[in-house]
């Protein structure tokens, strides 16, 4: 008599199931009936960043660089007003008692029927309003608008850097992997050296000597990025190179260039796409660090990193400037990482080594 064996897997605790449902989009899977889980949150975040970046001038509620100084340092819409209690006194203000007091004359300007001895609440910071959903900065510029325009900057940076760095890196990787020998040695050692450079300091050196500009930042980011593309491409080329279909192409008389770009390149695309997704996160973080240090795109362009820097000194009075722009960076990069991981598993489970 065979005993029945319990084959059910141990159930995960409820909080973990909810966490997984949200992060890995089990809900979406259930709704859409797809076989692979779609990542709801990362996809929503990335879509909104792309949409915000492209449509910034039409959807942003305010002007990105011109602010209203009368509305400076307003909290987000949920932020309440701050008041401080003051005691109304008659006659001259008693300096020794500190600033908890207010003269009767001044008090009457605020509240007509004030008498000495009253306690009066004075608004020291206005509450948030729906005019500025996420508050304003020290120049009265709308934070939401600047975050939307910041997405545009990050998007342009990422796309251009990927184009420049990606094409250099992929070509170098193809050449290194295909030819091998001293060319491979030369390219890969260059890659090692570039990865060993203190890239931020090199960036500072370049910015000080050439002056900060949009193009320079792209060049710096591309220099930092291309070696990573080369490494992955080369590894994949080595894997594909000895496959039968490449040998067949060679036998049928295809030129080296044709083999490299028509036969090998498509074979390595999967890994390159995965790496590109993960590298966009690296680009955004690096660009943010440069802007934060003041070596990024020159102000008043609303880059996320420079917004963070502007809010740093005012963190005690206006927490929302740094916090919210940081959340924008964090959510975007987190989504890219999650999406990249998912993409890697979805395209080819064997690509796990790219981690």
């Amino acid at each position, binding site marked *: 008599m065979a005993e029945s064996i319990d084959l059910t897997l141990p159930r995960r605790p409820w909080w973990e199931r909810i966490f997984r449902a949200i992060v890995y989009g089990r809900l979406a899977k259930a709704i859409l009936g797809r076989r692979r889980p779609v990542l709801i949150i990362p996809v929503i975040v990335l879509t909104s960043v792309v949409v915000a970046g492209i449509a910034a001038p039409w959807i942003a509620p305010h002007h990105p660089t011109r602010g209203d100084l009368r509305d400076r340092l307003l909290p987000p819409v949920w932020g309440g007003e701050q008041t401080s209690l003051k005691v109304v006194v008659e006659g001259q203000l008693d300096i020794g008692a500190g600033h908890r007091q207010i003269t009767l004359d001044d008090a009457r300007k605020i509240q007509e029927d004030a008498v000495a001895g009253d306690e009066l609440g004075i608004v020291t910071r206005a509450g948030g309003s729906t005019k500025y959903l996420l508050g304003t900065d020290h120049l009265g510029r709308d934070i939401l608008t600047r975050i939307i325009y910041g997405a545009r900057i990050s998007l342009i940076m990422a796309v251009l850097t990927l184009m420049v760095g990606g094409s250099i890196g992929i070509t170098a990787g193809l050449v290194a992997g295909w030819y091998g020998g001293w060319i491979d040695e030369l390219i890969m050692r260059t890659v090692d050296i570039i990865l060993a450079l203190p890239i931020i*300091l090199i960036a500072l050196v370049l910015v000080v000597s050439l002056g900060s500009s949009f193009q320079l930042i792209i060049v710096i980011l591309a220099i930092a990025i291309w070696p990573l593309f080369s490494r992955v491409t080369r590894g994949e080329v080595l894997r594909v190179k000895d496959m039968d279909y490449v040998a067949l192409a060679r036998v049928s008389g295809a030129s080296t260039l044709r083999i490299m770009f028509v036969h090998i390149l498509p074979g390595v695309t999967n890994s390159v796409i995965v790496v590109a997704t993960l590298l966009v996160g690296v680009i955004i973080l690096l660009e943010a660090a440069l802007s934060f240090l003041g070596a990024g795109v020159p102000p008043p362009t609303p880059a996320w990193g420079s917004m963070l820097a502007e809010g740093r000194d005012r963190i005690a009075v206006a927490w929302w400037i740094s916090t919210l722009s940081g959340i924008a960076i964090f959510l975007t990069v987190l989504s890219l990482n999650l999406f990249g991981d998912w993409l890697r598993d979805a395209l080819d489970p064997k690509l796990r080594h790219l981690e």
Partner: protein
Amino acid sequence: MRRFLMIIVTLIAVSMIIFIMARVTGDPRVLLLDENASQAQWDRMGEELGLDKPYYHQYLFFMKDVLRGDFGESIKLQEPVMTAIGGRIWPTVQLGGGAFLLALLVGIPLGVLSAVKRGSALDQLGRVIAMVGQAAPSFWLGIMFMFFFAVKLGWVPPSGSDGWNAIILPMVTLAWGGFLAGSLRLMRSAMLDVLDSEYIKLAKAKGVSGRSLIWKHAFRNGLIPPLTLAGVSMPAILTGSITTELVFAWPGMGQLAIQALYTSDYPLLQGLTIMFTLGYCGIALLVDVLYAYIDPRIRYT
């Protein structure tokens, strides 16, 4: 030897970038001489600085100074660059070293435990820590820590380096944003690989169990990938130390670099860049030695 060669080439590459950029910036005589200097003075100065020589010659001149540790005079601070940097080395080493150790002390045990107790709450916690560390800019983490623990709660001073507890926030920031996530993830996956290997199964079959199996048999081999990462992620830590020092006004080399950026103090910046590169290369070499020590199969020739 090969490693050593790489370091030399890296240093040459950095020095060349600096040299070329210095020439792009303009003629150094513009800064050194006043406006109404005569043509003769101008030429004599050029000869002294070797500007009349061809570029490769000038580069050798420059390298000779660099090797002697002479980076010239800081424009804004009015003192030799080496003196200015000298006082800033220790705070940066303190901060970077502390963060590095903290990352290892948290990341490696957590990585091992995550692998051993796969899927547990601890594993989930480790995953969240790693995800945040990889996605959040370290300077943002730093500002948030400063806001909560220094401004709101007042547990530690918000900036500067006075008092023993001033280093806590910058250290945690640098560790979390720099190296913790990587070491945790790598340690976890390396441990999973090792625990799945034949020799561990053999040890298990022989009756070795529990702690001894994990820490004595598996741990040592699992340590190799994170250690490799430690060497590779040094630039990230150094880079992170620049932003972290800016956030917390930590008086190290990073803060000096920012000062040099704001005042366009080129000699100071070039000295710092070379010092940072040297520091990185030294650590990479150290990691290699450690690496060979842990895994005797590796021998460098």
